[in-house]
């Protein structure tokens, strides 16, 4: 009886391990449109939403920091950087805030369930000529610990990962 159980378990495990790689290609994301060695980050805009200046700056600075941290791009240029003009394969990241809810750190600490801060940002990657190559809506939020600005770090990590996965010329770095 024990032996049968052992064989069955082994068979299930073996089948599972063989089946998993077969399923993976089907779930894989579509191939990236273009690889780039440099990325330029433009200042975050918020035409429809009234975004406090500290959130705007924090989004921008965290985005640049996370892109540099993730690696994969030889250069991460800021808005207005003259050196970006000479970069051949440059991708430009435009970010527009579409939704913003400033929560309360005190409410989060006291109630745990309320006081969430969240930011919805529309990210558009364009090539040097301004042609859109990828568009995605991303969200940054802080639900439990930390100040409200932590939501910007959450967004920056997601955006940097998106850029890295789709455009990084050296994804290993």
């Amino acid at each position: 009886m024990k032996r049968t159980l052992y064989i069955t378990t082994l068979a299930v495990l073996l089948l599972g391990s063989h089946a998993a790689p077969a399923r993976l290609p089907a779930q894989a994301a579509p191939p990236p449109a273009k690889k780039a060695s440099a990325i330029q980050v433009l200042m975050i805009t918020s035409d429809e939403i009234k975004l406090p200046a500290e959130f705007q700056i924090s989004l921008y600075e965290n985005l640049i920091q996370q892109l540099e941290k993730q690696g994969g791009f030889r250069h991460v240029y800021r808005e207005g950087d003259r050196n970006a003009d000479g970069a051949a394969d440059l991708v430009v990241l435009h970010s527009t805030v579409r939704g913003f809810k400033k929560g309360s750190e005190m409410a989060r600490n006291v109630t745990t369930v309320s006081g969430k801060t969240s930011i919805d940002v529309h990210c558009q990657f364009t090539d040097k000529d301004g042609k859109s190559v990828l568009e995605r809506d991303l969200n940054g939020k802080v639900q439990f610990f930390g100040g409200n600005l932590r939501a910007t770090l959450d967004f920056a990590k997601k955006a940097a990962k998106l850029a890295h996965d789709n455009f990084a010329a050296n994804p290993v770095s």
Partner: protein
Amino acid sequence: MVLRTMRRATFCLVGILGFTALPSVAQQPAAGNKVVQVTGLAGVKANTSGNLTLENGSLQFASSAAKVSVPIHSVEDVITENDSQRVFRGTIGTLTMFAPYGSGRFLSLFRSKIDTLTIQFRDTDGGLHGAIFTMALGKADPFKKNLVSQGARTSIPVQDDSGSSNTKPDAAKEKKP
């Protein structure tokens, strides 16, 4: 006996006075504003405490580990706002969340009001930078006035954004680069 007691009391008094006088003497030479650099300055870690001063046409942030200077003429925007923060923050603040009987939650009710100063400036290559500082309540507006008087630009005139961000005029709020 009485003399000895009096002498002891005098020593104690002198000791206490000397001890309390020390911090005030130490605070006097510290010109400028004590601030916390939240993010933005190159080479300075996030949430670093330091001194923010205006010297020789530049905005200088000096902490124990680093000193950063930004030319005032390169500052494109200065915005002040109000915020609040936990009195018990950082590692201790996080640890208080695990304190028994909900005492951590109770402690998080204690908050102090602060001013935030946000600046945007360009580096020598034209790259746009931003930096956020927090400082004691009521310090940001006078600092902004000084900054603007020395050549920094602002999208919101000084007299219009004293107080919270809610008091800003609509035209000022609409400004985004």
